[in-house]
């Protein structure tokens, strides 16, 4: 993802027309030529989040790594968050922006509760709201640099959707963000959407394992979360097993002797 962003050297002069009439910290910092407060590039990042509908609800899975470029810096970052009893979100991309995303959505949820009018925000409402927020920020050239998965279960109907940093919104039975799109989505699409919770968990673990094998920026410490009629359940982070013992990999020296 690289939407066209001006680098800091060009910012001040080009943005004057937009600065007049817009409010906010980023605008005022430009007027006074302070350092930029827009997200120009993601700094501490999370990799793919996977989502799959199963028989009784929706399951999300993600690893718990916060990468600082190529450094595996924060080993236990919780990237799956409960919003309400019917909604769960998971985020990849810049983790500080994801904290803000969660803050916005929780604020909406609190206002919604405070109305106390007997009707609550649906998972689809959360999805739409996030989509509008992300698109609005992209138009101001100040994106929240995330790909967010929204999962929910309400009135017996599962919901699974994705919103990304430029405001793209879509729903599907199986979703993945970031690198998971290339590695895990082919496997998730092959799995049925009517699996039991244990089978779905196994599919998610297999996908995260393959993601760890082939993605430089992922780890084996993972979390699985489900949202179903019983509400939202987020597991504690746990280690995933990996297998390195295949015979075929023992003699891969091209320039040396084959060990027969």
């Amino acid at each position: 993802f690289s939407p066209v962003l001006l680098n800091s050297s060009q910012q001040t002069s080009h943005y004057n027309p937009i600065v007049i009439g817009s409010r906010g910290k980023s605008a005022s910092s430009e007027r006074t030529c302070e350092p930029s407060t827009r997200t120009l590039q993601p700094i501490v990042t999370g990799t793919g989040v996977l989502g799959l509908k199963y028989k009784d609800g929706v399951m999300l899975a993600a690893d718990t790594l916060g990468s600082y470029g190529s450094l595996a810096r924060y080993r236990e970052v919780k990237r799956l968050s409960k919003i309400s009893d019917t909604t769960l979100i998971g985020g990849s991309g810049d983790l500080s922006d994801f904290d803000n995303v969660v803050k916005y959505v929780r604020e909406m949820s609190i206002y919604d509760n405070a109305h106390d009018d007997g009707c609550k925000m649906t998972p689809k409402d959360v999805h739409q709201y996030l989509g509008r927020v992300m698109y609005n920020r992209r138009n101001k050239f100040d994106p929240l640099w995330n790909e967010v998965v929204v999962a929910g279960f309400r009135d017996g109907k599962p919901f699974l959707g994705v919103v990304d940093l430029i405001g793209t919104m879509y729903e599907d039975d199986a979703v993945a963000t970031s690198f998971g799109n290339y590695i895990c989505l082919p496997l998730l699409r092959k799995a049925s959407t009517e699996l039991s919770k244990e089978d779905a968990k196994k599919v998610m673990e297999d996908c995260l394992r393959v993601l760890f094998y082939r993605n430089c920026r992922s780890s084996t410490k993972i979390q699985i979360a489900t949202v179903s009629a019983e509400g939202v359940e987020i597991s504690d982070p746990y280690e995933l097993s990996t297998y390195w013992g295949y015979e075929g990999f023992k003699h891969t020296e091209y320039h040396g002797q084959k060990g027969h």
Partner: protein
Amino acid sequence: DAEIPTGGFTFDLCKRNAWLEANDSSGSIIKKAKKTGTTIAGIVFKDGIVLGADTRATEGPIVADKNCQKIHYLAPNIFCCGAGTSADCENVTEMISSSLTLHRLNTGRECRVVTAVTMLSQYLFRYQGHVGAALIVGGVDCTGPSLFTVYPHGSVDQLPFVTMGSGSLAAMAVFEAGYQDALEKDAAMNLVRAAITSGIVNDLGSGSNVDIAVITTGNTEFFRNIDKADPKYKSKNPLKYAPGTTAFFKEQISKIKITVTEGEAMDD
């Protein structure tokens, strides 16, 4: 005075090429290379090698060939899948195949896979990545089955399962999830078919049918179009109507009289 020996790489034409690239916007001098945008895969199983490939050749966003053949012959016991620029894959493999035939005649022995791989990697390195051929070379020789990938810049990897091309991640996901040591032939074939199908379904640069080649000691089987793509539409021509669809009152059958004015009459 002694002449400075010319050897090694000559980069005389690089400046000209860079100028052409910058100034040839119409594409009349530098033709756009036809790329394969591919899913190719190979796996080592108990008795040998299974190679698989899709059959779509793309020219940017257009499908240039719906049923091209990406599994190339190198020797009776060595086959090669190619991804990257079509022309480069085709010509490099034919050239090396010829060299291997001469080598076989010279030595009187069956070719080894490492011979083919060495020839390919040395050639590709000499051209510093400009020959855009990314190859999966697999075969069975006197030392057993072996599987290699050769990259356009000339590097080589020897591995038990490999994928290349734009659909390689989708295919590799299937391999990582399903690979076991010492697979049986049917299991290996099904795994490769599933991997190529995953590339065809999930990658836009791959499509159409699946080709498979199975190489074992002394025997090579090539399954062209083992899995066909869903046809987009079934042609309704010619329409077949069952006799009696149209009701009729009267039937009159008469023989048409033909008078031959020129040439000889046909036998009835």
